[in-house]
């Protein structure tokens, strides 16, 4: 059966992982052609680090980067007090397979292609 593997990662699992473990797991899965959906998303710093690591691994022939989409972080009373904003649901996939069609504050529409291009 031809298809695309989707890995849905729970908040509990993500909470047990360090930032680098999360980013490594995401990039390894995406480079294998899988799409990763994180229940609790990444922090802005982790997202920047993910972009940085992605750039280091682009090889122009097999991996041209990622499509990543998340909602803007929500500000809560706790986050206002301590400056910590938790990431929200995040979707990450290989750029040659996932294409974002539109994005709003509360709706992300993406298309997944079965072929490479």
């Amino acid at each position: 059966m031809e298809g695309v593997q989707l890995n849905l990662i729970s908040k509990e699992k993500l909470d047990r992982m360090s930032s680098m473990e999360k980013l490594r797991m995401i990039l390894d899965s995406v480079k294998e052609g899988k799409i990763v959906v994180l229940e609790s998303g990444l922090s802005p710093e982790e997202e920047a680090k993910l972009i940085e690591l992605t750039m280091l691994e682009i090889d122009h022939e097999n991996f041209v980067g990622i499509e990543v989409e998340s909602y803007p972080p929500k500000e809560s009373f706790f986050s206002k007090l301590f400056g910590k904003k938790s990431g929200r649901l995040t979707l990450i996939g290989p750029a040659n397979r996932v294409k974002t069609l539109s994005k709003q504050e509360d709706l992300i529409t993406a298309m997944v292609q079965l072929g490479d291009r």
Partner: protein
Amino acid sequence: MGLITSLKTRFRSIFRWFFKKDKMRIGIYGPPNAGKTTLANRILRDWTGDVMGSESEVPHETRRAKLREGVKIEVDGKTLTIDIVDTPGIATKIDFHDFLKFGMSEEEAKRRAKEATEGVIEAIKWLDDLDGVLLVMDSTEDPYTQVNVTIVGNIEARGLPLLIVANKIDLPTASPARIKAAFPQHTVVPISALKGLNIDTLYRTMAEKFG
């Protein structure tokens, strides 16, 4: 980010407020082709008579960060001295095929793509050395891109002053209102860096925000 890091960020922004530097280092950020270099050139041309770098329709024209120190901006009797860092556009993907459309050879396109990936890394690293950010967005485009969301999130987490520049308002499809609606918590200044439209308002707002 842990609680201690959060408190450190808070402390840093309070410290910054009390002990403002004589000179602010301001980074110009945004996605490729938003008009970052055009804005850097406009600021430099207006206040030093010089330019920062070459502008182009080809994405990732700026592939190395460029620093210009000691630019004095005088608004309403106030002087703001800034170091300007024009950064390469931040992107999550770089495909050399995209450059072939601009008439480059495959070898040239691959070289450009490689330099562009290095430029993105450099732009992200520069975030650690800044006192404020001008985030340039193309007001003819959808503002809810991941690059914009990531940059805004990072600047907020670092407690840095941020000014969003809604560029290209000279184009008929421009909608700075869409950018204001997407990032209501931040100051948005609509301008055309190319034509110089509303540029005085930008300088006044920069003096208020970074001065």
